[in-house]
């Protein structure tokens, strides 16, 4: 251990006495902004719902029961598995996976392109990538809806060019949600991959070519494995918000594209809401995300430095 704490026991104690108060702001931030809300959500998921929103302080597993089990309309039939919410989860995961792959497919070449520009122009390219993010996500998603709708500029342009005879219906489809998610989270893919490629030692590519590797073999055997941490970070940064997204599915998708984010959102809206159920869905979502991160962390732990 380096630092001023090294040395005699009394020195250690003095050091700790000095440092403890300095840590208080960090503990407050972590406690109030992270631990407390999650704990609150966990507690709420075990409470009983109040009909006009809010909760009654009666502990119950009803919210989780509602998520996983179907007991019939009056709750007196033998329990069967409730597929409604699992289907929504499955659809959300699938949409998030697709969005992540799409972002990777476009984001990797983009990041590569930027990272291989001369150092003085890289900043400009990065700036261009981040410009749209100066505008609120809601406004951008609404604009996208305008762009994609049947009488929108995209369809009109295609029709005036004679490429299509009638408008392509994109809005209210899975494709629209995909486009929305892709557009929302692309920079989260580009930036970490950019950081990894920028650190990449291009002498490794030369060494691979020197040792008879073709361009594809070099990409597969050397480049991708070496920049993998950046790719994984990008995938996580796109996958997690895509999984819980509700703006894109709400504004661009229809009833058939209902996703977890919208489901949670709905539970806390107006008098139809069910707070404990919303909290339970959020807890289940968080558990899922944590499992993904844990798998990633373990994979990283095994990899060489």
């Amino acid at each position, binding site marked *: 251990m380096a630092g001023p704490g090294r040395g005699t026991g009394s020195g250690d104690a003095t050091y700790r006495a000095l440092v403890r108060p300095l840590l208080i702001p960090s503990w407050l931030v972590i406690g109030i902004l992270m631990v407390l809300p999650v704990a609150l959500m966990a507690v709420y998921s075990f409470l009983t719902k109040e009909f006009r929103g809010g909760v009654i302080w009666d502990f119950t597993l009803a919210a989780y029961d509602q998520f996983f089990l179907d007991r019939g309309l009056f709750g007196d039939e033998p329990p069967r598995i409730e597929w409604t919410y699992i289907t929504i989860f499955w659809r959300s995961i699938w949409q998030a996976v697709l969005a992540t792959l799409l972002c990777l497919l476009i984001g990797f070449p983009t990041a590569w392109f930027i990272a291989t520009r001369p150092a003085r122009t890289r900043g400009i390219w990065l700036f261009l990538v981040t410009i749209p993010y100066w505008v609120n996500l809601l406004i951008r998603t609404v604009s996208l809806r305008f762009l994609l709708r049947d009488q929108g500029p995209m369809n009109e342009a295609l029709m005036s060019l004679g490429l299509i005879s009638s408008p392509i219906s994109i809005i209210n489809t899975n494709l629209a949600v995909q486009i929305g998610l892709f557009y929302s989270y692309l920079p989260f893919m580009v930036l970490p991959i950019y950081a990894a490629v920028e650190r990449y030692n291009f002498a490794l590519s*030369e060494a*691979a070519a*020197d*040792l008879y590797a*073709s361009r594809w073999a070099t990409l597969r055997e050397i480049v991708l494995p070496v920049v993998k941490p950046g790719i994984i970070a990008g995938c996580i940064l796109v996958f997690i918000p895509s999984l819980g997204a509700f703006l894109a599915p709400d504004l661009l998708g229809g009833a058939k594209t209902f996703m977890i984010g919208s489901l949670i959102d709905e539970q806390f809206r107006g008098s139809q809401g069910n707070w404990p159920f919303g909290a339970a869905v959020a807890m289940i979502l968080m558990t899922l995300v944590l499992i993904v991160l844990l798998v990633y962390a373990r994979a990283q732990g095994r990899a060489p430095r």
Partner: protein
Amino acid sequence: MTAAVDLKNVVKRYGPVTALHGVSLAIADNEFFTLLGPSGCGKTTLLRLIAGFEDISEGEIRLFDKDIAGLEPNLRPVNTVFQHYALFPHMTVLDNVAFGLKMKGVDPVARRARAGQMLEMVHLSAFADRFPSQLSGGQQQRVALARALAPEPKVLLLDEPLSALDLKLRQAMRVELKQLQEQTGITFIFVTHDQEEALTMSDRIAVMSAGRVQQIGTARDIYEAPENRFVADFIGETNLLQVDVAAVREGRATVVLPGGKQIVCPASGTSSGRHNLSIRPERLTISDNADLMATVERVVYLGTDLQVIAHLDSGEPISLRLQNAARVSLPEPGQRIGLHLEEGGARLLAD
């Protein structure tokens, strides 16, 4: 006999900058050939042209009589030991060494066996399963060497491979590299700015400066018969004196030394006029039979040698090296000494 590498009037330009101005070189098969020069002289560019990382702008480049201009590096039977090794960080030492064979389509059993042999050759068998980051600089250097030799290239290119090692290791590796080259019979093309490295290992050396080859020859050639001022100055230490040339005939010149004495010495194709005379410091002795008269300024003790720094009566500085033998009596600062020039110790330079 066909040359391993044959370059004819090779020009390399980067935009408006010309890095190589018409280089011609023929490197024989099984030769330890060194490209020696200060940084920026074009030696690394030349190596990269042979490896195929860059394309020549003009001229001809042949490998065992086959025109390789424009050929991708992965299609050239040439391997490189990179200056900073460029080992693949995500692969074990064994996988690094086997990589070239894998890309050539050698089956896993055979390539692992061959990679194992290569590691044995560079004394790293015990480290086969480590990752490059777990090795010392010297060990990484050996892995890079084994990796480049494993696919049995026809020519091995070495880009200042010893520059990152400490002195002791560097000296040991010089001997090992030379042995390895003799053992494998592969043509080595070695790039360095370190003249001692070049002189100790090479069969032949090309001294480069400012994108041109200044002289090609054996270590002895370039040290004892430098063709121009750059080579004389860059290789070893030398005293350069401006002298008047009385006559030049059949490679020998009669020159007038400062102080008036005439001597006859070998010349590198000059005419009469005023030219540089190169005198190696170790070819001067203190003697009553003096060719030059000088006044001692300083004596520097170097262990095996003594360096005497003096100036001639005409004011030009001159230094000489004396072996630190028991009988040597040290000259004192301010003392006037006669300097005797050994037979063949001076050479008249072209420019």
